[in-house]
């Protein structure tokens, strides 16, 4: 098997007395989609917020390209090429599409913005993702629909040569056609060599795009599965805790 781009082991995180991650391991591979599934409150979002450097882990090891790294700030993550599309999208409604895509990494010339360059890169990225629904890259995000916002959030993630893209429930709020578009986008990302971690509740989505399926149950990783060697029922069993994989948990 390939070498993983990122490898977590023994990751722990608590909020006060509540232990949310209890020694989790996870791998993601370049060019592959790894689905992370689990019931509400299993700790999926917490796990990826640690990877993003937004909410650092209390302990455990993260290896990137085989070397241990520390992720204590969003910049640590973006420096490695880790980009996250959050469940709650985290866009600024009062800014336009270009401004949102470049937030925190604006192109400047003599310390002032090079708006033309940013606009160019933003529309190139949207076009490379075959986005057709956006009228103008200078639209305010407040004027966009749910699907368009999702698209902008994903485009933001891939704007700067991302190596690992993590999507937290990207299709949860979308209709059928938009879900299909986003899943196509996810597959296209992986085909470009990006390692993708996809969090989803929807097993149909998961089986459509994922290569690997990892199941988180109450803060512990209970199964690492290959998508083509498992079934929906198995995955549901792991998610609900009625089934336990031998040797999966530490």
């Amino acid at each position: 098997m390939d070498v993983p781009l990122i490898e977590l082991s023994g990751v722990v995180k608590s909020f006060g007395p509540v232990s949310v991650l209890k020694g989790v391991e996870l791998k993601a591979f370049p060019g592959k989609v790894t689905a992370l599934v689990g019931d509400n409150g299993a700790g999926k979002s917490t796990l990826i917020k640690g990877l993003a450097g937004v909410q650092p882990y209390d302990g455990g090891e993260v290896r990137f390209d085989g070397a241990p790294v520390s992720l204590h700030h969003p910049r640590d993550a973006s420096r490695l090429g880790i980009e996250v599309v959050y469940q709650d999208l985290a866009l600024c409604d009062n800014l336009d599409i270009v401004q949102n895509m470049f937030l925190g990494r604006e192109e400047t010339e003599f310390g002032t913005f090079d708006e033309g360059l940013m606009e160019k890169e933003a529309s190139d990225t949207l076009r490379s993702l075959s986005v057709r629904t956006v009228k103008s890259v200078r639209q305010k995000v407040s004027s966009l629909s749910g699907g368009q916002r999702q698209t902008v959030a994903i485009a933001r993630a891939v704007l700067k040569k991302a190596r690992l893209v993590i999507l937290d429930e990207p299709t949860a709020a979308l209709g059928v056609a938009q879900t299909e578009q986003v899943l196509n986008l996810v597959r296209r990302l992986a085909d470009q060599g990006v390692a993708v971690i996809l969090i989803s509740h929807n097993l149909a989505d998961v089986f459509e795009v994922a290569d690997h399926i990892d199941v988180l149950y109450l803060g512990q990783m209970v199964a690492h599965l290959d998508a083509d060697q498992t079934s929906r029922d198995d995955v549901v069993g792991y998610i609900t805790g009625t089934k336990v994989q031998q040797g999966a948990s530490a």
Partner: protein
Amino acid sequence: MSTPRTPQTPQAPQTTGPAPDTSVNDVNDLIGSGQEGSVADQARAYLQRIQHGDMGALPAVAGLVVLTILFSFLSPFFLTERNFANLLTQAATLVMLGMALVFVLLLGEIDLSAGVTSGMTMALFIVLVNVHAIAWPIALAIAFAAGILTGTLIGFFVARVGIPSFVVTLGLFLGYQGLTLMIIGSGGLYRVQIPEIRDIQNSNMPVWAGWVMLAIIIAISAGISFWDRARRTRAGVPNRTIALVWIKLGVIAVIGGAAIAVLSRNRGQSVGVVEGVPIVVPIVLVILWIGTFVLDRTRFGRYLYAIGGNAEAARRSGVKVMAIRWSAFIVCSTLAVVSGLFSISKVGSIDAAAGREIVLSGVAAAVVGGVSLFGGRGRLMHAAIGALVIAVITNGLGLLNLPAGVNLMVTGGVLILAATVDAISRVRAGGSLMRT
């Protein structure tokens, strides 16, 4: 980009949009940039934005025009050269304070102590000069240092400790009244005798300098417009039709020219000639221009808007939210010192009550001009225009010899009206950040 561009064969050609001078761009490009089209198209897009509640300073500008017409009918003195110059100097203090407040209002924060900060620092300044015989430039530097320190203190409690700015600055609002009282002594009043400080609000530039100022403003506006266009062309994205640049420069030339023409006429009442643009005007314009440049074109400015729009999104994007918040309060307090300077220059003296009343008018000025109290929306120009609206109301009602109570009631009514517009446009649209 590592991502290969998937070639697309457009099945149905999009409605062949007008766009003669967007030829740089791929004709089949489905994503626009909002820059395409003729003057008429741009005007239509602007009207559409207004319909969606993105009104910016439009209501305030309309209000300014209506008030000017109204007062010029009601009072023969309103539209005189003398009153026009007077109005500008009366407004300067409030314009400055309103602009100072924009930096914190953009974050959705407030600084209720901005007025007393200007009062306290000016008390310090004048007492150091008058009582302790310290050279005025040094005393002024100390006053500015006190202002910066004030902002640092507020920023510490708001951004670092996490206390709501309303509470912190309300505390300071009370505390600084006490401090000013201790500096000046109860019942005390000090005259401002420094000629350079008095000149700011009481002397005028030579007539020729006013015209040179206008020429410089037009040259800088043109230079920046063409620099922007050159950069956009280099990046290969479309430019707005060049007619818009000429229109913008024409508007500046006509309005600016008219104002300077009026100010260039002798407005002296008896002996002696009084003419030229008051010295305070170019000072305000320079600060307005620098501040606008920072807000529109630098990271610090962009992050103020981003934090005001969605602080969590900004944080996740790697923005140092705490540092930006902290600095915004420092900028606000520092500009408040400038506002205090304009005030003592105009009044000619300082007492222990200095700066106590003005802060709410400053907030009102910003809101009337179109700055959102909810954060993330507004420009320095808005605060300046809002301050002019309030100054015109004060000035006009004063000319009519109406009791001061009427002034307060009218200003209060205008503020509530403006806040209503703000709340409605917040529901209907996101913001008005992009310049036209």
